[in-house]
C-alpha cells in the first residue's frame, strides 16, 4: 500500500517530465524543418542564379564568336594599315613609300655640272586592296621628284582580277612586266637607282591590259599584254596614247626548283619581248634620251630624228638567291627604226642595248630574296639588335648602236661630240635595314663614257667620268 502511494506520484511526475521533454523535442524538430526548408529554397535559388550566370556567359560567348565572323579586322603593323572584312574577302590597305636622298656629284670639269643636294626621290602613298576575294586594285600617286607639271601624277592605277591562279587579267596603268629589276618594288631595290636596263631600255609603266598567271605549281609565270606604248625607259605619265600603234608584250619566267630542297631553289630565269610600231613627228619623236646613273644628265640624245617604224625589245633575265647571297642579271636590246627629219631624211634601224649584273650579301645572315629584307633583329639603340646589314655591288653597261652616230662623211642621228656611245658603270654600296620599314643606304657609282666629251666629228673625245655618292633614308610600309 505504501509502495502504491509512492509509485503513482512518481509515475505522474515521470509522465509530466517526459511529456514536457517530448513537446520540447518536437518543437526543436519543427523549427529545424522550417529552417531546412528555407535553406533548401535558398540553395535552389542560388543554384538557379549560378546556372543563369553560366548560361548567359555561354550565350555571350556564342554571340561573340558569331559576331567575330562579321566584325571587320583593323590592322596597324609593320605591314601597313588597313581594314579587312571578317571573311577576308574585302580588304583595303594604306601604304606609303618615302625616299629622301642626298646626291653628291664629283664630276668637276664636266659641263653641264650635276647639282648636288637633297632630293625627294619618291613620295608615294598607296591605296590597294581586294574586293570579293579576287579583284585586287591599286592606286599610287606620286608627289616626289618624278612629278612634273604635265603629267597626271599617277604612278599605278589598275585592277587585277585573279579568276584562277593560272588566269588573271590586269588592266590600267602598271609595269608592263618586261624588265626583271623593274618588277621589283621601289621599296625593295638593292641600289638607290635602277640599272640602265630598267631606266633606259625597258618601259617603266604604261597603260594597257594583260593576261597573266602561274602554272605548273607556280614554277612558271607567264604574261601577255597590249599597251599604248612608251619610249625606252618611259612612263605613260599623261595616261594617253601618244604612239601610233599599240605595243604587244610577252614574258615567261621559270623557277624550276622552287619549293624544293635543291641548292637551286632560288633560281629564276626568263625571257621577255615586246613589239611596237611608232611613227613620230617633230613634236612627238617617239624616241628616248639615255640618262647617266646620276639621273640628271643624258649621255645620249637623238638629234633631228624621229621614230619611224618598228620598236622591238628582247630581254633574257634571271636571278639566283642562296642564303644571304643574291645575284640578278639581265640583258635588254631594243631595235628601233628611225629617220632623220632634216637633210637626207636618212632612215635606219638601230640596236641599242644594256645589261647589268648585281650581287648582294646580307652580312647579318638573313635570307636574300627578290623581295624586301626582313631583319632578324630590329635596330635598338638601347643595346638591342643592329638590324640587317647588306653589301651590294653592280656592273652595268649601256651601248648605243654605232650606226647612230654622225661620221665625217654622213650626218646620222646623233653627234659623237655631244653623245656617248657607251656608258660603263660600276657601283658598290651598303644598305642598313633598321627594321622592316626604315632603311639607310649609300651607293658609290662611277661611270666612264666612250665619246660625247667634245672634240670633233672626226676626233671625238670621251666624256669625263661621272662619280656619284648617293645616300638615302627610306620609310616604307
Amino acid at each position: 500500500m505504501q509502495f502504491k502511494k509512492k509509485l503513482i506520484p512518481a509515475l505522474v511526475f515521470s509522465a509530466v517530465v517526459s511529456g514536457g521533454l517530448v513537446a520540447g523535442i518536437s518543437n526543436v524538430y519543427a523549427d529545424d524543418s522550417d529552417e531546412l526548408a528555407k535553406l533548401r529554397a535558398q540553395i535552389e535559388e542560388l543554384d538557379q542564379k549560378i546556372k543563369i550566370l553560366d548560361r548567359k556567359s555561354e550565350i555571350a560567348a556564342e554571340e561573340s564568336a558569331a559576331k567575330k565572323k562579321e566584325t571587320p579586322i583593323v590592322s596597324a603593323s609593320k605591314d601597313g594599315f588597313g581594314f579587312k572584312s571578317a571573311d577576308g574577302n574585302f580588304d583595303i590597305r594604306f601604304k606609303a613609300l618615302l625616299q629622301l636622298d642626298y646626291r653628291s656629284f664629283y664630276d668637276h670639269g664636266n659641263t653641264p655640272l650635276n647639282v648636288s643636294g637633297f632630293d625627294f626621290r619618291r613620295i608615294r602613298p598607296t591605296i590597294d586592296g581586294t574586293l570579293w576575294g579576287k579583284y585586287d586594285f591599286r592606286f599610287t600617286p606620286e608627289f616626289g621628284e618624278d612629278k612634273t607639271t604635265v603629267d597626271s601624277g599617277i604612278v599605278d592605277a589598275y585592277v587585277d582580277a585573279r579568276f584562277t591562279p593560272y588566269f588573271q587579267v590586269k588592266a590600267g596603268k602598271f609595269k608592263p612586266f618586261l624588265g626583271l629589276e623593274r618588277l621589283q618594288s621601289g621599296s625593295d631595290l638593292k641600289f638607290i637607282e635602277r640599272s640602265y636596263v630598267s631606266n633606259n631600255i625597258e618601259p617603266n609603266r604604261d597603260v594597257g591590259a594583260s593576261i597573266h598567271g602561274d602554272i605548273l605549281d607556280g614554277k612558271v609565270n607567264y604574261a601577255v599584254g597590249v599597251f599604248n606604248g612608251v619610249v625606252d625607259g618611259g612612263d605613260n605619265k599623261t595616261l594617253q596614247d601618244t604612239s601610233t600603234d599599240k605595243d604587244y608584250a610577252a614574258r615567261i619566267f621559270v623557277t624550276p626548283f622552287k619549293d624544293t630542297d635543291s641548292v637551286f631553289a632560288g633560281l629564276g630565269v626568263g625571257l621577255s619581248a615586246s613589239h611596237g610600231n611608232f611613227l613620230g613627228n617633230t613634236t612627238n619623236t617617239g624616241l628616248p634620251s639615255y640618262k647617266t646613273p646620276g639621273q640628271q644628265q643624258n649621255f645620249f640624245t637623238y638629234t633631228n630624228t624621229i621614230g619611224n617604224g618598228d620598236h622591238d625589245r628582247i630581254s633574257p633575265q634571271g636571278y639566283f638567291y642562296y642564303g644571304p647571297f643574291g645575284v640578278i642579271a639581265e640583258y635588254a636590246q631594243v631595235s628601233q627604226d628611225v629617220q632623220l627629219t632634216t637633210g637626207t631624211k636618212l632612215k635606219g634601224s638601230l640596236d641599242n642595248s644594256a645589261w647589268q649584273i648585281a650581287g648582294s650579301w646580307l652580312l647579318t645572315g638573313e635570307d636574300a630574296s627578290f623581295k624586301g629584307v626582313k631583319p632578324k633583329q630590329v635596330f635598338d639603340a638601347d643595346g638591342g639588335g643592329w638590324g640587317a646589314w647588306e653589301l651590294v655591288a653592280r656592273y652595268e653597261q649601256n651601248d648605243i648602236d654605232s650606226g647612230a652616230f654622225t661620221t665625217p662623211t654622213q650626218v646620222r642621228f646623233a653627234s659623237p661630240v655631244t653623245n656617248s656611245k657607251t656608258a660603263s658603270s660600276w657601283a658598290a654600296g651598303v644598305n642598313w635595314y633598321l627594321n622592316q620599314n626604315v632603311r639607310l643606304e649609300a651607293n658609290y657609282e662611277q661611270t666612264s663614257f666612250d665619246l660625247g666629251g667634245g672634240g670633233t666629228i672626226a676626233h671625238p673625245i670621251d666624256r669625263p667620268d661621272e662619280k656619284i655618292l648617293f645616300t638615302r633614308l627610306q620609310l616604307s610600309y
Partner: protein
Amino acid sequence: MKKLTMALGFIAITLAGSLSATAAEIKLLNVSYDPTRELYQDYNAAFSKYWQAKTGDTVTVQASHGGSGKQARAIVDGLEADVATLALAYDVDQLNEKAHLIPKDWQKRLPNNSAPYTSTIVFLVRKGNPKHIKDWDDIIKPGVSIITPNPKTSGGARWNYLAAWAYALKHNNNDEAKAREFVGKLYKNVPVLDSGARGSTTTFVERGIGDVLLAWENEAFLAKKELGPDKVDIVVPSLSILAEPPVTIVDKVVDKHKTRAVAQAYLEYLYSPEGQEIAARNFYRPTLEAVAKKYEGQFPKINLVKIDDPEFGGWQATQKKHFNDGGVFDQIYAK
C-alpha cells in the same frame, strides 16, 4: 530491209542517248528556323529516297538552323539558300523586300499560304508542375522564372509574345495599356534570352534553368519524349496562337544553281502523305486532312488566335508595331 535498218538505227541512237545520260548529283541548302532539326533530318532522308526512285538523281540536302529572323538576314546578306523554311511569313517577306530574291506573291505558290504544317505555343514545366502553372496569368507571378527566346532574332519568340499579348487583350477588354503591363511582367520574369527556340529549350531542359518554357508545341513534345515523361509536363494554356511556318524556294538562288525543279519538288513533297506523316511524327500539326485525322489525338485542342485577326492585322503591321526597333517590345524590355 530499209525499215529494219531505220529501226536498228533508232534503237542505237536511243541506247546511246540513255547510256550517255548519267544520274545527276544535286545539292540543296535548306535554311530553316531553330527547332526543325529532327523534322528535316527525317524529311531529307525520305525526300532523297523518293527523288532517287523517281528520277535516278541523288539529292543531298544540307540544312542550316537558327533563329528565324537571323536566318532571313543571312539569306539577304548572301547565304545561298535554295529553299527557306522559316518560322513566320514576315521573315520570308524580307527575302523579297530587302533583296528581291523571291517574288512578292511567294505565299500563294503553295497550299495553305505556303505552310505545309502548323504549330502553336504551349508551356513546358518541371515534372509535377511545382509552381502550379495553368495559364498565362500564372507565369507572370513573382517568383516564376520564364524561358523564352529573343523576339528580335527568333520567330518562335514572336509567336510566344503574340500569344501572351492576345491573352492579355482578351482578359482586359482589349485594353492595350494592360496588355503592355502584362507582357512587361512576363519579360521581367525572363532571366535569359536565347537567340532561338532551340537555345531556349537547351536552357530549360539541359541547363535546368527556369520554371516554365514557352515552347513551340513540337519542341515541348520532343523534350518530353527525349527527357522522359518523369522529367517534364506539358501545360496547355487556355489561349494560344496558330503558328504557320511557311516555306519557299529562293528563286534567284535556284535559277543560279539550276535547282529549281528539285527545290520545288522538295517543298511540294512536304504536302504529300509521307511528308505530312513525317511532320506529324515530329509533332507538327499536319494540314493534310487524312493525316491530321490520324494524329488528332496527339495534339490538344486549344483556342487559337491567328496573325490575321483584328488585334494583329497581319505580320507587316505586327512586326512594325511590336518588333521593329523602338517598337512595343523594345519599350517594354527597356524598362
